[in-house]
């Protein structure tokens, strides 16, 4: 009987955060794997510790924090939001006003990270609370348009408010990821310069990796706990049928408010981290595409589960790097005539011949960047059409296959 999936002998077991031993083992292995990556000590995995892949992991973790917010709002509470990019931007600009360096034309107080990072979540959360009442009045697809409107009105504001954002096309310096006691002090822990920790030589990205990992684990636990508690169940009741939820005594307005507040908090933190990590971001970067990326992450990973957001962000943020690497391999094949040359010829275009990927920006065919956008679109479509549960759904199917093996069900 022990370890039989979906067989719970006590209520506590049913309500546990990780009910089965399999889940606990997988979680332990996954976290251990992540901790070991930047140390480059595991043979065979040292490549993943390179700056190139650490960059992917760091960005994936930042996007994952934002995606967890969308998991709560869209996945659990069923409120379609295209405005995630707006809340991320509000978080980032709160961070830069509090933590950035001020000049004659730019606002910035230079406060330490333990002030600007929480504030970067709280200010968007406040705005989320202000938006939430309209979600009670304006429902379904109309709400999608309201949140879409936030992105465009936000874009105009960020272009106009040059004293905060640095102006269109320019941007400004973002606060550094370093823990200081007060402004001007020497950093206690610096996540933005290379150095040695416990005898390991670590680059800036490796150090940021650990900071982000800790933050991601905190936010993932918060999401997981919220979703299995009263709040999460209320969210799901509203998602499945709002009137029915109200009749059963779920305070719709209150829970929509909570959903918007949490989701915006997560988005704000994610935006601030993204800006601080990237170092430079122009006001135009907080656009509809960023919102679509967030939606793509939760849809492809699997909406409404924490592991879906994690799988989705690793997959979608890793995709451009994989495409770039594949392109480089193909180009080598074309130029040097390897065994894959015919296939590579089909994909790569160098002059006027047919191909999907163009090396010449003005030639026919797509650039690597454009190809990535097309792949995003294609993946969203294919997952929604054939696997609405996302990568998580694929995992469930594989798991069920082995769980019931040798029987088919």
């Amino acid at each position: 009987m022990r370890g039989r999936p979906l067989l719970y002998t006590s209520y506590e077991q049913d309500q546990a955060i990780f009910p089965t031993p399999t889940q606990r083992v997988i979680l332990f292995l996954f976290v251990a794997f992540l901790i070991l990556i930047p140390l480059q000590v595991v043979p065979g995995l040292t490549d993943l510790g390179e700056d190139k892949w650490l960059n992917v992991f760091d960005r994936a973790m930042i996007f994952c924090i934002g995606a967890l917010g969308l998991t709560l709002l869209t996945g659990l509470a069923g409120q379609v939001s295209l405005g995630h990019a707006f809340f991320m931007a509000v978080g980032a600009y709160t961070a830069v006003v509090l933590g950035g360096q001020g000049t004659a034309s730019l606002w910035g107080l230079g406060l330490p990270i333990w002030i600007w990072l929480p504030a970067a979540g709280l200010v968007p959360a406040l705005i989320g609370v202000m938006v939430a009442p309209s979600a009670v009045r304006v429902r379904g697809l109309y709400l999608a348009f309201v949140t879409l409107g936030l992105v465009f009105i936000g874009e105009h504001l960020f272009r106009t408010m040059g004293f905060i954002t640095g102006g269109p096309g320019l941007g400004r310096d973002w606060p550094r990821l370093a823990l200081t006691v007060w402004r001007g002090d020497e950093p206690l822990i610096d996540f933005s310069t290379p150095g040695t920790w416990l005898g390991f030589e670590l680059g800036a990205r490796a150090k940021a990796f650990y900071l982000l990992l800790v933050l991601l684990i905190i936010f993932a636990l918060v999401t997981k706990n919220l979703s299995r508690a009263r709040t999460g169940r209320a969210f799901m009741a509203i998602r499945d049928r709002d009137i029915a939820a109200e009749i059963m005594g779920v305070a719709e307005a209150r829970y929509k408010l909570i959903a918007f507040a949490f989701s915006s908090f997560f988005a704000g933190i994610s935006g601030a981290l993204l800006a601080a990590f990237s170092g430079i971001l122009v006001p135009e970067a907080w656009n509809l595409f960023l919102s679509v990326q967030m939606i793509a992450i939760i849809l492809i990973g699997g909406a409404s589960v924490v592991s879906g957001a994690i799988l989705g962000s690793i997959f979608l943020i890793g995709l451009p790097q994989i495409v770039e690497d594949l392109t480089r391999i193909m180009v080598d094949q074309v130029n040097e005539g390897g065994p894959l040359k015919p296939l590579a010829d089909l994909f790569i275009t160098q002059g006027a011949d047919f191909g999907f990927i163009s090396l010449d920006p003005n030639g026919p065919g797509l650039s690597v960047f454009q190809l990535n956008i097309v792949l995003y679109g294609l993946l969203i479509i294919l997952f929604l059409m054939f696997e609405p549960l996302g990568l998580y759904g694929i995992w469930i199917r594989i798991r069920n296959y082995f769980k019931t093996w040798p029987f088919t069900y």
Partner: protein
Amino acid sequence: MTGHFVVLAQTATELEKLSSTLIAGLGQGAIYALLALGFVIIFKATQVINFAHGALAALGAYLVVYFAVTLNFPGRFLSQVPDLVQWSVSALIGVLGAALVGLLIELLFIRPMIGEPLFSVAIITLGIDAILRTITNDLIGTGIRNLDAPFGDNLLEDVFLWGNVIVPHSQIATILAAVVLLFLTALFFRTRTGTAMRATAFDQESAMAQGISVGKVFALAWMIGASLAAVAGVFVAMPPRGAGATVTTALVALRAFPVIVIGGLDSVVGAVVAGFGVGLVEVLAAIYLLPYSDTLGVGFSTIIPWLLMLAVLLIRPHGIFGTEEIRRV
């Protein structure tokens, strides 16, 4: 971004300034009305929010450039007919090309999703938008692709003068084309096929029970929607709104979305009224708020549709002409 271009003579009086602005507003409104009408036709027939509408508009503009300018087809075989006819035939082929793409989208992506949640289908169109917009932008390239329309490429010469009020020919063409197309659509709804469409929009199952092929109605709705978007795209890419098809042509639809919501997602009348209304307000604001652009920011007029939308939704959550959703447990 497409700016609002209103030619004003130095000596224009207030009344003349207002007249020029109103005509420019009607032109902008005509474009919004075309986009909104196509969107609403698709939404009513298939219950799909088409986020790819802007991509279809840009694709239409590109296809017209391709047939009318790059290929000069069929113009090269018809040297004796006037330029206007040659260009219009090429433009028609371009618009039909966009309709074909609309049909393909419906057959490949929308038809298999019948019965799925509306949200999923809406997000699928977001994915289609990403693909279609990227490919169209790659085809257009980094430059400006002039449409070479036989009316109104030159803003200084191809104009009607009426006192100090300067009316570009292309502005008249835009308004005329929109009015003709809106009228034709209204007539179309009176035909047998149009009635089938209205029946499907009213109730899909009963329409099916009456022997109406709902699949054909879906396909037709997407073709009409895509062609209206393409026509709008062509006029966006024409002076006085732009010098030609560029990578920003698709963005006009992003300002047409609030127009659709203001009119009500499922109202044809609402789409047309809100289209002209928002166009007028936007251009009036662009001209008369120009002195305040230090505080409001450059390009403030481009977010006016969105601000109007938020205001309307707070008062009427289903748009001005939209039907109220009946909620059942």
